[in-house]
């Protein structure tokens, strides 16, 4: 059986890589991919605890998180496509209309 600290450390590393991706990159689509990495880090922690506590509920929550991620990607990519049509750019530092 795999120690839960391995899974949690892997989850933390994966989440950190996602955070760095959001902060470092300026392409909105790559930022979305990094958000997906963070969601998957949360899923991994859920599965690890479900295995450790021998409960199935954590896996059900992962199922819900996957659904939310799919909905988020659909709406978010629609927003990105719309912004690209409007501004000819997907770089988040050039889309600063709200900043005035």
């Amino acid at each position, binding site marked *: 059986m*795999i120690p839960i*600290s*391995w899974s*949690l*450390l*892997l989850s*933390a590393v*994966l*989440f*950190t*890589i996602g*955070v*760095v*991706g*959001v*902060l*470092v*990159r300026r*392409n909105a*689509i*790559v930022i*979305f991919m*990094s958000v*997906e*990495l963070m969601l*998957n880090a949360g*899923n991994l922690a859920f*599965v*690890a605890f*479900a*295995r450790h506590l*021998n409960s*199935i*509920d954590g*896996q*059900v929550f992962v*199922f*819900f998180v*996957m*659904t939310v*991620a*799919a*909905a*988020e*990607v*659909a*709406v978010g*990519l*629609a*927003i990105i*496509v*719309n912004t*690209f*049509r*409007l*501004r*000819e750019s*997907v*770089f988040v*530092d050039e889309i600063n209309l709200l900043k005035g």
Partner: protein
Amino acid sequence: MIAQAVFAAFAGILVVSSLLVVLHKNPVTSALFLVSAFCSLAAIYLTLRAEFLGMVQVIVYAGAIMVLFLFVIMYLNLKTDLESGAQIAVRRGIGWIAGGVLVAEAAAFLSRRWTLGPAAAPEPMAAAGNTQAVGQVLYTRYLFPFEITSMLLLVAMVGAIVISKSRGAEPKATFERGRPAAPAAEPGASAPAAAAGRDPESNA
């Protein structure tokens, strides 16, 4: 023992490919490394005895979501990021510092002594399949959240369609306003109108 070796191998693949997602310049290559990361995460789910989630991970993430990502990347015809300049360097440095702080925090937490309740009894749910167990819980105890999820998907679908559709009607409208009788003049009439419509927004 063999499960731990498989876990370690796929954890290495997962970390390397997610680092490449973040670091690679080309968005298409980033997306393909993200597929690799999702597939190795599915293998990790298998070693954690979540077989149903491993399959769903491959089908939903590596299948559906990544196809959507790649479709949008190729639709927008993105080139590589031109990342230079002092401001971007400063922001990138801040990002790496924040990431280092997060890693140090996680390492400090995981290296301390911490207790986690009773360890699991050795696999009583192996008799029935994992998919059956998930389904039984999902359709009894979590039935109401499951129905809410269907509503969420419906709202997301409608929202995505509405957002994508709102700008598409504009060139047609300018064409009808500009020159309704001559369809042959459509490209010449609509292109300046679209350019004129876009200019004040880009100045703002």
